[in-house]
């Protein structure tokens, strides 16, 4: 059975070109870039090149790139590093729809005496910027708001938020793990101070990420114990990861247009067909400000895990915001923050596409999904014939 992979917001396939780049770095070119000998030292050039490739995708200077172990580390380093560098300020502003890598960190900081403000969203997942403006004060050390939501794909107006935060003298961090490689960014024209990205969300390897730190941003290092990354992130460089991420960023820049045309076309086709063919379903999230690859649909009266398992039987991979799949007993915190009723939140399915998906895969899914939905509704006590 072939796999139809529609779960690219969870992780992505490593691009063949990326694999080719990093293959020699395990057994042939395995040196430590910090070594004095040529064998190790030559790796420094490869890291430099990767740094330039990442900077080109983000539209920033290579010196503003710090390599980390992934999105979660970047988020932790940005939040804790900013607070440590601003000891007189005790307030953090974030949103209720952040990824746990941000939200859990902020809630933990609340236990350490910080005042955490969690901004709500409306039914389409949009923020109220006047509320943010009201909450920003002299005590605000950091505002951390995601670029695009992982579950719904909703894009938040972070450029405007960044300007607003800058005007109040606070630091602005954005978790852009889902946005980088999917929509164009230009940090040289932006007020964003800190930005997190992850390699494995854009066809790079797992275990590698980046924290972008705008020149002049005060940040205390989070990981200590070495001089690497100009003392900003200690630890021997993950050379294969870094080189792989560099290549992945170069490919992402080349494919950005395709992402916003062909991938978007496939997503739109899938979405429109599902909404048309399945009764009692609804689209979650702001339809006009969304990542081109993401679609989150709720099917009323049935449960997400059951849908996923039936899709899985056909080799179709997706994900759900239902309680049963979240590892907890409550459905997605993002959908709940948006006021999606429980009946719909338990039956939410996310399809997230990539440039490796084909129209045949979309057509196959359009054919297979509606019978699954009606089959599960036959089982449901809440559906009256």
């Amino acid at each position, binding site marked *: 059975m072939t796999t139809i992979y529609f779960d690219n917001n969870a992780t992505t396939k490593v691009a063949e070109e990326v694999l080719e780049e990093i293959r020699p770095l395990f057994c042939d070119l395995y040196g430590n870039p910090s070594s004095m000998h040529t064998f190790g030292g030559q790796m420094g050039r490869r890291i430099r090149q990767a740094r330039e490739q990442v900077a080109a995708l983000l539209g920033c200077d290579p010196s503003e790139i710090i390599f980390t172990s992934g999105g979660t580390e970047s988020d932790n380093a940005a939040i804790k590093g900013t607070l440590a560098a601003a000891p007189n300020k005790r307030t953090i502003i974030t949103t209720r729809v952040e990824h746990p890598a941000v939200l859990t960190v902020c809630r933990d900081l609340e236990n350490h005496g910080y005042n955490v403000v969690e901004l709500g969203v409306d039914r389409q997942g949009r923020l109220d910027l006047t509320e943010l403006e009201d909450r920003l004060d002299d005590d605000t050390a950091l505002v951390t708001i995601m670029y695009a939501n992982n579950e719904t794909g909703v894009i938040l107006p972070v450029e405007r938020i960044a300007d607003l935060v800058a005007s109040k003298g606070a630091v602005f961090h954005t978790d852009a793990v889902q946005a980088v490689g999917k929509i164009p960014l230009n940090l040289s024209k932006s007020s964003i101070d800190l930005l997190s990205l992850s390699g494995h969300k854009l066809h790079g390897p797992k275990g590698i990420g980046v924290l972008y730190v705008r020149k002049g941003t005060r940040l205390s290092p989070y990981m200590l114990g070495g001089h690497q990354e100009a003392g900003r992130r200690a630890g021997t460089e993950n050379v294969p990861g870094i080189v792989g991420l560099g290549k992945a960023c170069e490919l992402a820049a080349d494919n950005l247009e395709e992402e916003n045309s062909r991938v978007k076309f496939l997503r739109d086709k899938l979405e429109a067909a599902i909404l048309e063919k399945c009764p009692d379903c609804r689209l979650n999230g702001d339809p006009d400000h969304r990542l081109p690859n993401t679609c989150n649909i709720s099917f009323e009266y049935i*449960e997400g895990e*059951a849908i996923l*398992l039936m899709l899985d039987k056909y080799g179709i991979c997706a994900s759900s915001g239902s309680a*049963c799949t979240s590892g907890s*007993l409550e459905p997605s915190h993002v959908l709940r923050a948006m006021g999606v009723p429980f009946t719909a939140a*338990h039956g939410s399915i996310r399809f997230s596409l990539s440039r490796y998906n084909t129209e045949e895969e979309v057509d196959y899914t359009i054919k297979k999904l509606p019978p699954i939905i009606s089959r599960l509704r036959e*089982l449901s*006590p*809440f559906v009256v014939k």
Partner: protein
Amino acid sequence: MWEYTDKVRDHFFNPRNVGEIEDPDGVGEVGSLACGDALKLTFKLDENGRIKDAQFKTFGCASAIATSSVLTEMIKGLSLDEAAKVTNKDIADYLGGLPEQKMHCSVMGREALEAAIANYRGADKKKHELEGNIVCTCFGVTDREIERVIRENDLTSVEEVTNYCKAGGGCGGCQGEIEKIIQKIQGDKVKEAAVSTPRRSGKLTNIQKIQLIQQTINEQIRPALRAHGGNIELIDVEADKVVVAFRGMCAQCRMAELTMKEVVEAKLREFVSQELFVEEDKDSADQQHNHRE
């Protein structure tokens, strides 16, 4: 991905006895859309009082559907007295086991069966009757229900109780109460809890004392207040005087003074020092503060 047995997968992909019997002898309904799973069980008896036919309709995950399906198979041919003896463990065993976090599905099956039998025997309520006092308000679980899953499945931790009946899996505010129920039933069986509790010590430096006070507030006091929509903030420590401020719901609560003595001061004395006394900082109570629902 859940590790389901072949039997669970079989009953999920090919559920038996789906539907609602017309004019049934017994009907049992448990769960709700909000909880994430719900089951409606109907049965019909033959002339000898044995279950002739049983059908189900289920909203829920794969294991909820499989559990319902297998339950209808298990009870066919049983007398009601025999059926009443079916435990959640019997259902799970019949399926070759369920993942720990999914054991509540088997409990839901047993509850639906009980409700249906009670419905036949005269209690004309189709809904699962709540017996005892509600402990977990998030999922509406009573002390009686918790005691029962502990006894029938020999549970010794709060996490296990959550897996079996969901209690404690929402806001977490009732976990202390669940712990007490486990203690009451299992007594010595309960393994020593490995949670890090702050340790009291005779000689503390000022910094150590403040850190211990903060840690006690974080781990022992705040979770209890949070469960009721409140919060607490440490404002100052002057010698043995601890100044705190209530936030959220606690700030307007008339019970706040009692909470201050009964909870905050008691916990701080238990975990930090007997000498401590607590005062509320009224000045900062008027400030605007953010708290979660």
